[in-house]
């Protein structure tokens, strides 16, 4: 009997120790995981397979709580965890908009109301546009742009333009001034904190193409897709679903399905992330020609498909198969025509075999 009790006690103690270890582990690691989950990213509105999604995350639990309390006050909580068919989502749009306006008129913070309204507007626009196969728009809060002038040391141009956390273009020691003319056209002037940027100065802007720097943001352009074909402008390929460049001052664009969305996104405080068509990028003027920080991967010129030899792996996977023949394998990507193929991102051994003509 005693022996049985002793055995029982030992088992109980072992269980306690085990539970202690498990709890210690959870206490040690859960807050990190929690915090990571809620690091600030803003909200993403996505459309895929005609379904609208929204997803928001924040930099701290406090901020999340604060945000959620505002969401509840505005009575639009369902919007922030939505996953609905575009048509049924459209039926909810007016309700969300009315709720936000009621919240505003009842004394809700203007900035928050503007932000909620922008999210709802963008989501409704996405739902309404039948030509969009898939798109993701990342929308952050307007925090930094004040009086059209920003001074920044070592921050992202994306941040500066629209207060975004875009990390495609880095800048340092810059003064960026937003100028709006009488017609409402926005231009951006960038000055070096050491003096005006000129050719003799050190480089200031770094594109996301590793190791390539540009000295001057000359302007922005856009690209227009129609039925999967590039019909104008320049294409800045989204390089993944987390980081993206920005839409600042929009240059001459063809009328297109996304122009309507641009109208809504042009307001300060918007981060945009398109799956299929991105719009603008930093550029510089070289010998009278606009050179973009990062060349697009595929362009159509004179009815011909041109594939950039510097095609990068991420954007290769996003190439539109309607434009070019593309085959992705576990080994790499093959882009091609009838007798011609471009092979990229193959393992080195495989590349060597290809070069030797073994395969």
């Amino acid at each position, binding site marked *: 009997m005693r022996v049985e009790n002793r055995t029982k006690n030992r088992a109980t103690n072992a269980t306690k120790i085990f539970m202690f270890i498990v709890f210690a582990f959870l206490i040690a690691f859960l807050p990190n995981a929690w915090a990571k989950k809620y690091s600030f990213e803003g909200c993403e509105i996505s459309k895929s397979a005609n379904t609208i999604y929204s997803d928001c995350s924040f930099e701290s639990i406090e901020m999340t709580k604060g945000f959620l309390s505002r969401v509840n006050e505005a009575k639009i909580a369902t919007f922030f965890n939505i996953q609905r068919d575009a048509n049924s989502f459209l039926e909810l749009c007016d309700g969300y908009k009315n709720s936000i306006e009621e919240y505003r008129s009842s004394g809700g913070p203007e900035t928050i109301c503007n932000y909620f309204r922008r999210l709802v507007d963008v989501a409704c626009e996405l739902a309404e546009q039948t030509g969009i196969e898939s798109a993701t728009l990342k929308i952050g809060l307007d925090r930094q742009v004040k009086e059209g002038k920003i001074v920044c040391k070592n921050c992202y141009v994306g941040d500066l333009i629209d207060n975004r956390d875009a990390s495609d273009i880095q800048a340092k020691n810059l003064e960026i001034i937003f100028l709006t003319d009488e017609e409402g056209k926005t231009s951006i002037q960038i000055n070096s904190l050491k003096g005006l940027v000129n050719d003799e100065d050190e480089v200031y802007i770094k594109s996301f193409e590793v190791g390539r720097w540009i000295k001057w943001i000359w302007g922005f352009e856009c690209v227009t897709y129609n039925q999967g074909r590039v019909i104008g402008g320049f294409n800045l390929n989204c390089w993944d679903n987390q980081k993206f460049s920005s839409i600042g001052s929009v240059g001459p664009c063809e009328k297109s399905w996304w122009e309507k969305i641009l109208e809504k996104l042009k307001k300060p405080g918007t981060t945009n992330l398109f799956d299929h068509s991105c719009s603008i990028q930093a550029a510089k003027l070289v010998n009278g020609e606009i050179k973009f920080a990062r060349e697009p991967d595929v362009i159509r*010129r004179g009815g011909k498909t041109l594939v*950039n*030899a*510097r095609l990068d792996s991420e954007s290769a996977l996003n190439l539109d198969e309607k434009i070019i023949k593309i085959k992705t394998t576990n080994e790499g990507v093959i882009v091609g025509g009838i*007798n*011609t193929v471009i*092979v990229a991102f193959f393992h080195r051994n495989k590349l*060597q075999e290809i*070069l030797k*003509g073994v395969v």
Partner: protein
Amino acid sequence: MQKIKTRGQLFLYIIIAILIIAVGLLAYFISQEVKKARWSEEEMQTVKNGIRDCLEKGLKEGIWLLARQGGYYELPAESAEFLGERAAFYLKQEKSLIPTKRTLELQLRNYLKNETSCIAYSYESLEVYLRNNRSEVEVRGIKASKGKAAFVFDVDADVAIDPLSYIALSEEIVQSYNATNPYVCIECIDMTAIKHAMNVTIVPIAEKGQIWFLLASGQKVDNKNLIWRFVADIK
């Protein structure tokens, strides 16, 4: 007395017989030696065929090597290397560096001279010509010796491989790529490849700023694919 006379005659006959045999043997050996120092038609043909076969093999191997290196046996200064593979640049800083027909011929000639030992005799000249969709080698004034006997002859060899067809396609590809660099015009190169009945594989190596072009017409050399490779830079 009669006995002595008979014995003397016998001795004389023996001497004469030995002399006749010796002269006969000598004549036989001399005739054999003379025969050895002369080239028979059959022997001459065997030597010629041996050299021709060897040159044909050398031509094939030389063209296979040249194809891999963009038409060069001795790579020029403007050449690229990747994973141990080497090939010549055909386009660098917008400058066309495509080898001429004469360059290819000289490179192939140097290969045959340095890398093969087909001709064990002295010769006056060895030239390679690329013409009529064939690659030809002409060796003139081969002097084969056999003792004091020698005969001088020429050997021609050829293979049905046309390196100039790859050069023709390369020129069109380079022209197209130079106009669109850093882009590759898929339709443009595709149309050219179809026109030349060849396949083109393009391997961009962005980290090195190189783009490798591999041209294949399906020809094989000793069961190995003949791949003509050249490199262009990426702007």
